Every structure is written in C-alpha cells, then in structure tokens.
C-alpha cells in the first residue's frame, strides 16, 4: 500500500527586539549567566509585566508577511506549569485570540508551487535555560533568556514530505530575516521547530494518529526526523499495529526518536487571561504603518530579478535568498550594466569567501563600488580574469581599492604586442617537444604553451593576445 505523510509544524522564532517582552532587560545572546535579568523576568514577588510594544509590532509584521488576518482586539493569557526555568511558574502566552490567524506561505518544491496554510501566529515569552553539566550533583538555572519575546507559528497540516518541510522552513527563515523580526539562528536557539506527523493510506480522507517530535536542532534534523518517523509509523501500520498519540524526542546522533510522554498524560496548563496586562487593541492605522515597513519579499524579488535583469531563475533564487545579498546585488546593478557578470561573481568567489571565512555579508569589506571598479578593470583589459580573482581575494581581506592593488603589485595586463612576442619566442624555444606535438596535430599542446606564457608573465599577459601570437608563431 502507498502511504501519504501529513506534516504540520510549530515554529518558535525569538524576536530580535533590543529588550525583553515584558521588561527592559537586554536580549543579547551569549552573556554571562544571569547578568541580563531583573526582578520582573526572574519572577520576584510583586513585580508586574509591561508589554514591549516592539514585540507586538514584530508579531504583526510577521503576520502580514505571512498573509495573516491581524486581530484588532487581542489579549495575553497565562499558561501555568512548574519548571525551574520558568520563574513565575506561568508563561505569558496567547490562548484563544492570537495576534495573527489564517495566513499562508507559498513554497516552491521541485518547480511546483505549494500553498501552506498558517493557522496562527502568537506572541509569548521564552523561558530560561537549565545547565546540567557544570556540577554532577546539581542543575543551574540561567534566566538571561527568560522573558525574551517569541512568536509561535503554527502551520496547517499541509506539508506532505520531509523535503517540503525543509523548503518551508528555509522560505520562512528567509522571510523572517527579510522583515528583520528574527535572526533565526537554529544553533543559538532563536529558531526552534516541533513537528507533528502522521501517515495515512493514499486517498484516505481522515488523518492518521499523529505524533509530535521535539528537540530538532537543525533543518537537517527536521528532514531526517520526518523520514524516520514516517517510516516508523508506516511499518507499524503495515504490521497491523496502531500508532500511539505521543510526544517523541529526536536523538540526532542516534538517528532515532524516543517516546517522551503519552498524550493522555498531557498537562493541563490552566490557561486564563493574564490579569496583569490590559487587553490589546490594534488599530488599522498601526497595521498599515507596519505594512509599509515590509520590504519586497524574496519570492517577489526573485520574479523581478528574472524579469528586470534577465537573470536565470536559479541565479535570482540565490541572490534573493538573503536580504543582505540582494541589497548588495542591487547596489552593484546601479553602478554596472551587466547583471549576469555581477551575479556570477557574487554566486562564485564572493559567496565562496563569505562561507570560507564564515562572515556575514554585511561584514564583507568589499564595497559594491570597488567590486564594480574591478569589473571595469577587466572590461578595459587592464587586468586579466585570473588576475582579477587574485585581486578580489586581496580586496576581500583588506577592503582595498582594486586599482590601488593592481598598481601596488604591478598586476597590469601586458598588452604590448612586441613585448609578448619576445616572451612567446622564448617559451617556444624552451618547449620544442610541445611545438613538435602541435605541428603533428596535437592541438592540446596549444593550451600548455598558453599556460607557460602566462606563467612566464606571472599571469599578466592578455590571454587573447597570447593565443593570437602563439598561433601566428606556430604557423611560421
């Protein structure tokens, strides 16, 4: 029997506000434990939360970018449970009136566009962190993260494969970064994802019994966990068993999931409206103001790059995958008329070095002005293509002007015909065997001789001219 996999995601993204959701503490990642907290976020007696309007704004912004309906009246609720990382024993969250509802996100998988429903997005606060490793006999609590604003994005059960889930997450991440509401770093925990998954015989209308998978720390883990869980459920069904409704924990190094708790042991969170915060009214004017702040999103941008700059779909996809890269590209395009050249450089050496050096695009020292200068040096045959690569690497290291580098290092291309003839004659004299080969019809030998000439000129010879002269000389 063929089975269909049904997947829904619950994504938590930490909002990149300067301060926490309900107090003024910093949200900066990586500080010394318990240095970014105050009486409010450590739940001292008698303190009260005050909502960070920015956090609400970011939630609305995410909702608009994901085509949601924005509530005009909403409220915060309390979710009650005991855990040492939750200092008030209740989390401020939203229960029945989330800020955003009924949205969607279009994703492209294998050239097909799929519309994935967004059930809701709500605002809540993060908990602290437990540190188990410092001492064998005790657990420490770090409350720096306590109260950091989070949005929880819940999809409809519209995803049908691990691949779709992965693409959805990539697309979502790219959008959240574009609109600047979250930095979405899975390794720092600012993007987290739980997966709900069930299988059903193809063609069946009713959903199968679902399980919830936790502890997914990378997109790869999400992908692998879905594959694993789908297979596990299918095997159970094929052996005539029944899938249990439960929460499972993914162990990435083992490549397996383990049962955490059955659903019937689900906690009763005793949600009720947060009595310390007034209900929230969101007016049209504010929503429109926020809507205006939303930049062109990646999908639109990609379409425009294809239409406006004649770029291949693939190039446009890569260039628009991050807002910083797209911005960089557009600054170059304003200064230089050949978009494809820019695209080739950005997708090639530029991104290669960004990845190798593991830096942010915004930290690349090469300005678009200097990159364009480099292109112009190539176009006007001042330097050759291979030399340009060397120059670019230096620019990437030092941020220097390419003209200065060429000048300093004497990298100007040799375009003086007489000078090159001299070099080539010497190369031919030193390589009689290759000349012989060429004359005997081994055309490959030409490449070798070009290489030798370039070597002799330290790469500075104009390659076209070298070719031309070599052919002339060999014909003699």
């Amino acid at each position, binding site marked *: 029997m063929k089975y269909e996999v049904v997947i829904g995601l619950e994504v938590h993204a930490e909002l990149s506000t300067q301060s926490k959701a309900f107090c003024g503490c910093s949200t900066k990642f990586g500080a010394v434990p318990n240095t970014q907290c105050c*009486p409010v976020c*450590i*739940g*001292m*007696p*008698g*303190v*009260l*939360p*005050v*909502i960070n309007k920015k956090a609400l704004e970011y939630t609305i912004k995410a909702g608009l970018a994901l085509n949601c309906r924005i509530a005009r009246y909403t409220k915060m609720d*309390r979710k*009650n449970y*005991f855990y*040492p990382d939750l*200092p*008030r*024993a*209740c989390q401020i969250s939203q229960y029945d009136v989330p800020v955003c509802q009924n949205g969607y996100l279009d994703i492209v998988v294998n050239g097909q566009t799929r519309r994935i429903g967004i059930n809701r997005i709500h605002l809540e606060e993060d908990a602290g962190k437990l540190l188990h490793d410092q001492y064998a006999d005790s657990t420490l*609590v770090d409350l720096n993260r306590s109260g950091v604003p989070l949005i929880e994005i819940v999809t409809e059960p519209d995803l049908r494969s691990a691949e779709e889930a992965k693409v959805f997450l990539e697309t979502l991440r790219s959008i959240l970064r574009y609109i600047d509401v979250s930095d979405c770093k899975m390794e720092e925990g600012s993007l987290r994802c739980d997966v709900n998954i069930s299988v059903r015989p193809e063609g069946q209308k009713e959903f199968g019994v679902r399980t919830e998978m936790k502890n997914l720390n990378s997109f790869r883990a999400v992908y692998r966990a879905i594959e694993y869980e789908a297979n596990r459920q299918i095997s159970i069904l094929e052996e005539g068993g029944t899938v249990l409704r439960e929460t499972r924990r993914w162990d990435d190094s083992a490549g397996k999931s383990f049962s955490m708790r059955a659903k019937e042991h689900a906690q*009763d969170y*005793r*949600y*009720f409206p947060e*009595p*310390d*915060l*007034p209900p929230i009214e969101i007016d049209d004017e504010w929503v429109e103001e926020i809507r205006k702040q939303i930049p062109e999103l990646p999908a639109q941008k990609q379409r425009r790059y294809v239409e406006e700059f004649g770029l291949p779909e693939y190039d446009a996809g890569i260039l628009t995958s991050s807002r910083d890269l797209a911005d960089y590209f557009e600054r170059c395009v304003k200064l230089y008329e050949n978009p494809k050249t820019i695209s080739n450089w950005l997708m090639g050496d530029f991104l290669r070095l960004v990845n190798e050096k593991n830096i942010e695009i915004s930290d690349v020292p090469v300005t678009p002005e200097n990159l364009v200068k480099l292109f112009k040096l190539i176009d006007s045959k001042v330097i050759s293509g291979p030399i340009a690569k060397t120059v670019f690497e230096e620019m990437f290291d030092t941020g220097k002007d390419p003209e200065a580098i060429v000048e300093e290092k004497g990298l100007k291309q040799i375009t003086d015909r007489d000078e090159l003839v001299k070099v080539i004659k010497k190369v031919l004299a030193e390589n009689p065997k290759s000349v012989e080969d060429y004359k005997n019809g081994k055309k490959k030998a030409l490449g070798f001789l070009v290489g030798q000439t370039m070597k002799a000129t330290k790469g500075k010879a104009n390659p076209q001219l070298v070719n031309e002269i070599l052919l002339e000389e060999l014909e003699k």
Partner: protein
Amino acid sequence: MELYKLTVHEAADLINKREVTSQQIVQSTLQQINEVDKDVKAFITLADERALEESRQLDASVADEEGLSVLAGIPFGVEDNICTEGVRTTCASKMLENFVPPYSATVVSRIAQQKGILMGKLNTDEFSMGLTTESSYFHETRNPWDLNRIAGGASAGAAAAVAADEVFYALATDTGGSLRRAAAFCGVVGLKPTYGMVSRYGVISSGSSMDQVGPVAKDVKDCAIVFQAIAGRDMADPMTAKAMTSNYVQALADDVNGLRIGLLRECFDQGVDKDVKDAVLNAVKSLEGLGAHVEEVSLPSIEHAPAAYCVILSAEASSNLGRYDGIKYGYRVERCQDLDELYKKTRTQGFGDEVKLRVMLGTYALSAGNYERYYLQALKIRTIIKNEFEKAFEKFDIIVLPTCPTTALRFGDKVDNALAIFLADKYTAPASIAGLPAITVPCGFDTKGLPIGMQFIGKAFDESTLFRAAFTFEQNTDYHIKRPAIDWR
C-alpha cells in the same frame, strides 16, 4: 504632648512650624509601640533603627525656611505584603520568612520621596488570605478595643497599629475587603481606591484583578493626604489608568448638600447585627439632615458577589503563588531526591492551610472543563454586578452600606461562624469585583463598645465624592476622635 496621638496633618503643621522635629515624633511613636505592641502585636518587623536614622537625617538636612511635604518626617507602617527595599517582606508566610526585597513597591517609593518614615511591616494573614490574622505564620494581631477580639483580616496589623497610635497611617491592601473590614473593626478610616488608581507594582499579588493599595488613617483628611501621595499612573503597572488625579485634599468640603445617596437594600436585611444597622441608618439620617437626598437602591446580583469573588481570587492566586517553588528565593526543603519532591515538600511545608485551600480551589476552578463552569461564570457575574452598579450610579452619587454586618468577633469564633464570615464578603466584595472605590468611616459603637464602620461606594475614579461625603460626616460627628480606652496597658 503625646506626639504619637496626633494626626498627619496636625503633626505636619508642628514640623513645618519647627515646633517639633521628626526625631521627636519618631521617638514618641517608638515609645508607644514599645508600650502597646506586645499586646496588640501589629508588627511583624520593626524598622526602628532605620526610622530613627532617617528622621535624624531629615532633621539635619532641612533648612530653616524650607517647606516640607505634608508626609515628611511622619511615621507610617506598611502591610507586610507590600515590598520595602532592604526591609524584610514576609507576606506573613514561612515561605518568605527571610525575604528582603531589592526593590520597593511604587506606593512605598512615592511616600519615601516625600520623606515619610517607615516604622516597619505590619501583620496580615498569610498572603493576605484570611479574615483574622490567624493564618499569619508569625502571630495574631489583637483588636486594641478588646484584646480578645480580632482586628479584622487580612489588614489587621495596619488597622490595629493606626487605632493604637503605633503609626500615623498605614498602607494596606484590599482585594475583597481586607483593608475596609480591618479599619471598621478598629474604628479608623480606610480607603480601597478604584482598581487602576494606585500602582500594584511591588505589591505581592493575591487576586491581581482586584488587588489595590489604600491608606488606613486616623481621619478622612489624613486618608486623602496619603491617597494623594500614592495615586496616579505608574509605568511599571500597566493596569494603572491614564486619568489624571485631582487634588483630593483641597477638594475636602463640609458639604453634602444635594448629594444623592443610595441606601443599599440588600445589605440592611437579615444577617446584619441590629447595632450595626441602627448605627449606619442613624449616620445616613444625619447626612440627610445635612442636605443629602437618601433613597433606597437595590443591586439584586450582589448576593452572588461572594461566590464570584471566591472563584476569581482563588484562580488568580493559584497562579500567582506558583512562583514560590523553592528554586530562586524563599523557603526550600533541602536534600530532595528529585525536582517533584522539592516542589511538593517546599510548598507543603512553606504554605499554611488557608493558602493551600485557595491554591487548590483556584487550580480546580481553572482546570480543563471547570474553567467554563467556574472561572468564566464568575467573570460573567462580575460583569452583571458592574452593570448593576453603573445603572445605580445614573441615579446616585454614592451608595451606602455597613462595612461589615457585625463588629469584631472573638478569636476562635471563626470556626462556628465560617459561613457568616463568607457572607461578610457580601458587604465588601461587590466594590472589589466591580473595581469601584469604597471608603469606610467610623459611625458608632455597638453595645459592647466596639466600633462600627459605614461604607460608601463611589463611581469609578470618583474618590473625591467619597472623601467629600466621609469628610462631611466626620466634621459633624466625633466617632473618629474616639480612641480605644487602653486600660489593658
């Protein structure tokens, strides 16, 4: 002169004329505390050294001609569920027996800015849950009018301290009537402000949607002076209203001419002691004689107020008290096998019975399936009661009723009268769940010589009218001047 017997405005006058110093007043008050508190037991923590030091500094720093705030240099007390920076704040619980907050409640900071002198922390029921202070982890506070009787609850320490001249005034909380009941039992003035009028920041939450801080004072003028100092928007409490506060002290007028008073029918029927009923009706008659229009008004739904109050308070408190888990501060049971045991033992040993009862009730009321049946239902009753009040206030400026159906009970009566005490909520809980301001003023004594309180409930944010009615009554009577005949000394 027995300085400790003065009111705030009398003492402020003497300080401003430089006839007495803050130190003299503080010393005199400390003497009185030494004298009587071993019997009254109003204090949990006495901040005597700090108070003396503060008054010394104040006297030293004040220039001859400098005008001082009316509260400057004058001793006050704070109910022990309100945080005071550097001074132990216990909530009368073992759970917080050694908790010293690193911050002050906004109300305390506001008094501190005016150079008020904090004398110490006053007894209350554990987490302000109770009617007698019998649930206090420390001791029971006794009524200065009769030491065998309760001084009310939870704010008994505040009311008893003011009645026994141990402080000039006190800040106390009122969630369902705590402050008003205690003030009435002790024959002093107490105001529960409109919800949102006074900041709750630093006030240890009990029923968050009803908790308010108000003054307990020797007379209405003092009450208005203190209210003026603590009221108003606070950015740290988002539930405080943006509305500007008026000048309540200047607005005090001996004038109720034309004031429309509604006599709350449901609170004069069965269940009220005859003495209490007679005293309040007499008081109303005297207001009528001063030009007020008095008419009966009915709020039929308030009979449901105690039940709704009980559910809302328990639900909110059950969540608010979750933070006392032994992890970060407060009491913790050591050497536990696992986290569950730590939680269970800490909370079992750290909380008393009354608190556990509320936590269990509230947890039950919020649990899946019960939420609609209890919590939501209680919220609906709250809305109905609010609406009834609103309608009544189309016709009336204030509503009058007894603060309590009885005078102070004897210790130990509690068990026999558990239901009676629950029903006492009928008199104070309506204003609480509707978020309305209510003031209690002394209006007579019963045959045993115990004080009786009369309560006015006003429109939201209309404390001015409450003050006016109360002030006028006071100007024309002398109940507020009477102090307990402290022959037990």
